[in-house]
């Protein structure tokens, strides 16, 4: 573990993205004015290259490099590809938007790529410090993006709120890391204390822990930090304001990419390191039932998150705000899978959620028009038959979020509930968790349907002209629609790959 292990290949995807981002900024600075299409094309190529670089890492089963800071395993690849997909989709739906909003183009693409770099690092991290690094890169980029529409008060409010609360929660995370570092202290071992996840895992599993109080405290503080990033109750209060105020494509990025990357790090630490597996707990005499306690806390958190998200979403009148609460609820469903100790179901959940949600936000962006003006649900009244294609697509996404079969939303919900039920054999609370989750899904139908009611059942109250859809946005939408259906109807290939990945990582131990 002490060997340095420098491998340029292992960080190739992140390197490519950073270089491309820097290049865009440079071109923008020196060439005075960069064409949106040029910047977009360069970013897209960069993202595709990073995706290819990720794929070239296929088959390196858990190889670590840079003193064990970076790990290359299926977990990283799977989440990494999700982030690349998110970035590509966001790029496609915002290519025209940046121009229409008359926003600085160069920085926009650069920041998007930096955010993606951070996400990729989070999924590749095998060290708490690395996770922190990735998280900060993503966060700083998204803080700026939230306030990107400088002259809009809501956008400013969103950025400031996100920044202050985000920094605050990062402090928690950092404090948690410090505590874990202390907890891993062992005078006879080398190194004496560690933030490396592989070592940490060994020490927790074998009970070589300096202080369980510190371990608990560290885990609890990290839980707060991650809970903030994924917007889980009771750390969710920032997200509706931030989501509502941020420019719509950025809201899409926050609710999908940021959330998925936080889930990746969350799962890496809590599932893979703390070994929150439903089976084989405590085989080597860890006192105090560390895993069981954490699991129970996660269960409570999942219940709170789902319930608060869904019930508050019911009374929202702004569609972005409603989807913010819906996003909280979905974090709750994914937490169900996380609590059950099955990272593969969380990964599939994120994949499905990302595709659906970006699709939904793309349509909201189009309908909102310049300056995010029309985002009230009442603005959607009667547009169903005037813009049938858009309305049908939005209905598909909303129904998929509600979990209708044949779409990604159903398959991903099924998987997390299935994992939770399997975990019920060891912890009876999981049975209740599934039932509560299911009731929550039923509640969620109400508010998703409200939008469909507005679109199709109500008469239009405001003037509405079918919007013009740019070619890039249409491409993004089509990818989202096909993805939603593909993951719902023929999930076989991806599920098989995920199952193999899960087994391989479980075998490696």
């Amino acid at each position, binding site marked *: 573990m002490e060997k340095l292990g420098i491998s340029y290949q292992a960080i190739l995807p992140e390197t490519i993205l950073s270089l491309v981002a820097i290049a865009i900024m440079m071109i923008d600075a020196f060439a005075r004015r960069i064409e949106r299409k040029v910047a977009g094309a360069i970013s897209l190529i960069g993202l595709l290259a990073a995706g290819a670089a990720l794929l070239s890492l296929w088959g390196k089963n858990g190889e670590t490099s840079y003193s064990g800071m970076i790990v290359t395993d299926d977990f990283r690849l799977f989440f990494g590809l999700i982030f690349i997909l998110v970035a590509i989709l966001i790029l496609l739906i915002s290519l025209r938007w940046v121009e229409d909003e008359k926003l600085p183009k160069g920085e926009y693409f650069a920041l998007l790529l930096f955010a993606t770099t951070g996400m990729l690092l989070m999924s590749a991290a095998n060290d708490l410090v690395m996770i922190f690094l990735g998280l900060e890169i993503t966060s700083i980029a998204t803080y700026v993006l939230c306030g990107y529409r400088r002259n809009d008060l809501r956008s400013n409010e969103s950025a400031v709120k996100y920044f202050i609360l985000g920094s605050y929660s990062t402090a928690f995370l950092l404090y948690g890391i410090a505590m874990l570092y202390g907890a891993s202290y062992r005078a006879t071992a080398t190194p004496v204390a560690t933030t490396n996840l592989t070592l940490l895992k060994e020490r927790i599993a074998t009970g070589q822990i300096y202080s369980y109080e510190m371990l608990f405290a560290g885990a609890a503080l990290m839980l707060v930090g991650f809970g903030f990033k994924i917007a889980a109750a009771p750390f969710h209060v920032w997200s509706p304001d931030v989501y509502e105020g941020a420019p719509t494509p950025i809201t899409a990025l926050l609710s999908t990419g940021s959330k998925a990357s936080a889930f990746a790090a969350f799962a890496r630490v809590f599932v893979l390191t703390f070994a929150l597996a439903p089976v084989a707990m405590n085989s080597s005499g860890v006192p105090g039932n560390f895993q069981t306690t954490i699991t129970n806390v996660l269960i409570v958190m999942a219940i709170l998150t789902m319930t608060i998200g869904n019930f508050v979403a019911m009374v929202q009148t702004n569609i972005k705000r409603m989807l913010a609460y819906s996003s909280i609820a979905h974090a709750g469903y994914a937490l169900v899978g996380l609590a059950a100790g099955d990272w593969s179901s969380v990964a599939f959940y994120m994949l499905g959620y990302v595709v659906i949600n970006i699709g939904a936000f793309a349509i909201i962006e189009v309908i909102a028009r310049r300056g995010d003006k029309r985002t009230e649900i009442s603005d959607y009244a009667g547009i169903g038959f005037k813009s049938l294609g858009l309305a049908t697509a939005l209905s598909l996404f909303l129904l998929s979020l509600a979990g*209708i*079969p044949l779409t990604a939303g159903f398959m991903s919900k099924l998987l997390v*509930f299935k994992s939770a039920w399997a975990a019920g054999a060891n912890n009876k609370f999981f049975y209740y968790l599934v039932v509560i989750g299911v*009731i929550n899904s039923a509640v969620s139908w109400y508010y998703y349907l409200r939008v469909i009611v507005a679109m199709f059942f109500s008469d239009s109250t405001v003037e509405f002209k079918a919007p013009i859809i740019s070619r890039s946005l249409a491409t993004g939408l089509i990818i989202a629609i096909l993805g939603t259906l593909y993951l719902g109807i023929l999930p076989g290939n991806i*599920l098989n790959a995920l199952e193999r990945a899960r087994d391989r990582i479980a075998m490696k131990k």
Partner: protein
Amino acid sequence: MESYLLTIITILPLVGVLALIIIGRGAPPNENNLKWTALIFSLATFVISIVMLIGFKPAGGLQFDTNKEWISAFQLGVRYHLAVDGLSLWLVLLTTFIVPVALIASWHSIHSRLREYLVCILALETGMIGVFVAQDMFLFYLFWEVMLVPMYLLIGVWGGERRIYAAIKFVIYTVVGSLLMLAGIIALYYMHGGATGNFTFDIAAITKDLGAGVFVLTEEQQRWLFWAFALAFLIKVPLFPFHTWLPDAHVEAPTAGSVILAGVLLKMGTYGLMRFNLPMFPKASHAYAALICTLAVIGIIYGALVAMVQPDMKKLVAYSSVSHLGFVVLGIFSFTEQGMQGALYQMLNHGVSTGALFILVGMVYDRRHTRMIAEYGGLANVMPVYSALFLVVTLSSIALPLLNGFVGEFLILVGTFTSQQLPYAKAFASFASLGMILSAVYMLWMYQRVIYGEVNNEENKRLTDINGRERLVLAPLIMLIFVMGIYPTYFLARSSHAINVIKNFVNPTSFAKTQDNHQVAQTADRSGQEEKPGK
């Protein structure tokens, strides 16, 4: 043997949807082309389902099997498994029969967004057929849920004044039930997989393992699972006190929607009870039979009493559905062959008669745009043919001998009365008979007020009698009313095998067998034998 017949029947309406979308692209689309396309596709589906009926072997179990692997990762074991037995067969036929009838019945009543309307109806048809032919729980759930969307749109877009309220109520009620069923499905799948090592959603396989005692549920587990499934189905039926969504949905839905809702959708609930609850959870079924039958009898009488005082014809018919479906539930939980055969028969009857009633109400509604009984009176003078046909349907609904309703209700009452398994069977049967009398009261009273007497309302004097298209719609329904009343053997012979299979699973004598088998299984396990004990 693989057969693609059921796939074709299920998919064909969906192909119609595609055709409609393609045809409807030109603006403005020709209304007639759209209507005929939809009609042709639904008629073709009906014709192919007749082919299925002809090829159906009465003594065979599940037929026209299609069984393909779909999702196998994570031990999901989801299969694309379609098949019909005597139970599904008739409900599929009912569906494929009702849809074209509903289409013709609403030929001139829909003008706005015709293409989307027809798309919804055809999509709905695929969903309904899918529910009846799916032999895999996952697939069943899929059709069950997906079907909600077109029905929701039908009520919400083309419905009456309170359509939004009705549509949302309909969906939320159904979704609450069906998501609990989803939890039940996941649980059952896990328990079965854990006990047998065979992770599958296959309905027949799980039922068989349960019956053979290879897979044993404790009584507590049975109770939980029973309610997880039963709630979904009882809401759909709907059994008192879950019925409140029904009158709203019926009243607000357009005629074709009401016909399909009453004709087919409600039967998905009773079908589910017969497909899942009875054969899979026999002990819990017996334990709760008295409770459910009490609710059913309350529903029969309550529905009839409420129907009696309705001023709105459509609402009256809607409440009569609550009453009629109570009979079906009673028949199912009598656990006798007659009772269950009667229940199935009554499902078909209700589809035909109530469908016809909604169409008849729709016909005068199209002319006068009101459904209030008080607005009518003396229609016999101006619409003689209409009045005669209305009479036949009314009599069928109140179970006059030689008409279809009689066969079903008679079988149900006999089955319930003679049931050995159902506690207080005789009391249930007696109270249910009271419901029959009440049904005569409210139906005949409505008939009298609408049809007989003098034409007092000026507007009714100019009403025209039903035209050729309307006669064409009613003709097959009236014919079926007679055929099913006079020659029920044809129908019952084809369902009897499936009903007997269910009866054997739910029968108390099979408990002893289950326990024996369980012991056999244990001995077999102990002696290291690999073969599973046969039935």
